[in-house]
């Protein structure tokens, strides 16, 4: 099944985000090998060059490492993964709060709503 893409952002940055989520969620575990560019491109139904670019960006941010013999692996540096996870969580919460404020909720009401649902 092709991955769903939004129309307004470059494809490579959307691929970046999707692979990042997989790393953070442990689909691709720290120190483990990643699928090849070609395989992942086929899975996502995207151009291999675009997938390559997403990998290059992930490499740039240190989340994946290219090893001479075993291809690309997820970094073993857990703090890096943890930071990325925290960053993703922050973005989620920020966009949630922005949406709630748009609906006219004040911060107090938002907190109460969250509490009632989490329980």
């Amino acid at each position, binding site marked *: 099944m*092709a991955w769903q*893409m939004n*129309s*307004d*952002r*470059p*494809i*490579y940055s959307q691929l970046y985000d999707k692979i990042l989520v997989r790393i953070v969620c442990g689909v691709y575990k720290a120190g483990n090998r990643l699928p090849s560019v*070609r395989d992942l*491109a*086929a899975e*996502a*139904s*995207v*151009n*291999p*060059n*675009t997938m390559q*670019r997403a990998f290059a960006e992930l490499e740039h941010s240190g989340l994946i490492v290219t090893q001479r013999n075993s291809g690309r692996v997820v970094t073993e540096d857990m703090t890096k993964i943890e930071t990325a996870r925290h960053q993703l969580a922050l973005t989620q919460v920020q966009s949630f709060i922005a949406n709630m404020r748009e609906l006219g909720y004040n911060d107090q009401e938002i907190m109460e709503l969250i509490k009632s649902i989490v329980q």
Partner: protein
Amino acid sequence: MNDNNSMAYAQSDTAQNESAQSSPVQNNSIYAQSSPVQDSPSYTNMPLLQLNDLCKRYPGMGSYMSVFHMNLIIPRGRIIGLLGPNGCGKTTLIKMINGLLTPTSGSVLINGMAPCPATKKVISYLPERTYLDNGMKVSQMVSYFADFYEDFSTEKAYGMLGALGISSDARLKTLSKGTKEKVQLILVMSRQADLFILDEPIAGVDPAARDYILRTIITNYNPGSTILLSTHLISDIENILDDVIFMKNGSLMLYTSVDSIRSQMGKSVDTYFREVYAC
């Protein structure tokens, strides 16, 4: 110097349209020395496809140019969408690259050579309409292609036929329009060409098979070859494209990467197309 030369024979070309064939041949002999055909690595530093000031005027169309001064260099290793509204010159351009039409002026160079038997060897072309013999069986078609093209992989063809559930014993005339199109695309994609030119490859094919075909294009893709495909179904193929070429009234409007349209315009190529060509 060079410019003068091409100008000179461009003019003579327009003067005598029928014998226009002489120009590619002439051209070929010029370049043949510097770039031997196939199997020689020396041609790889030539651009895969180069259009120089290419024009095409059909007889009876007055002064209207179906392709108007196109200049373009297409490198290896890209998947490129050739996009534009109906009648903007996409198929005319494709036919000139394949040597089926002779340019009114300007030139087409493939690996540095004008269209000729040697360039047909390195181009795998899917025309806009089918040319297969309706009376033949699919298996006969496969062996016909295998016979015709050195770079044809029978194994690959049967692999794809199997995956799409097309019986190799069926005669082409018994197949639906969409299935025929699939067969033809499979034959074209089973070659190991330098340049694949696909004119409307997915138009008549159902969405599930479309996905399969796009996946096939991606997995068969090799960094040394380029795929040039024309289509109106932009949103379906946008994710597999590196670059897009927009044509309008026979002219090149835009040649850029998909990601640069998305990052600069903040919209998909599909949306952008609808705005640019809004009626």
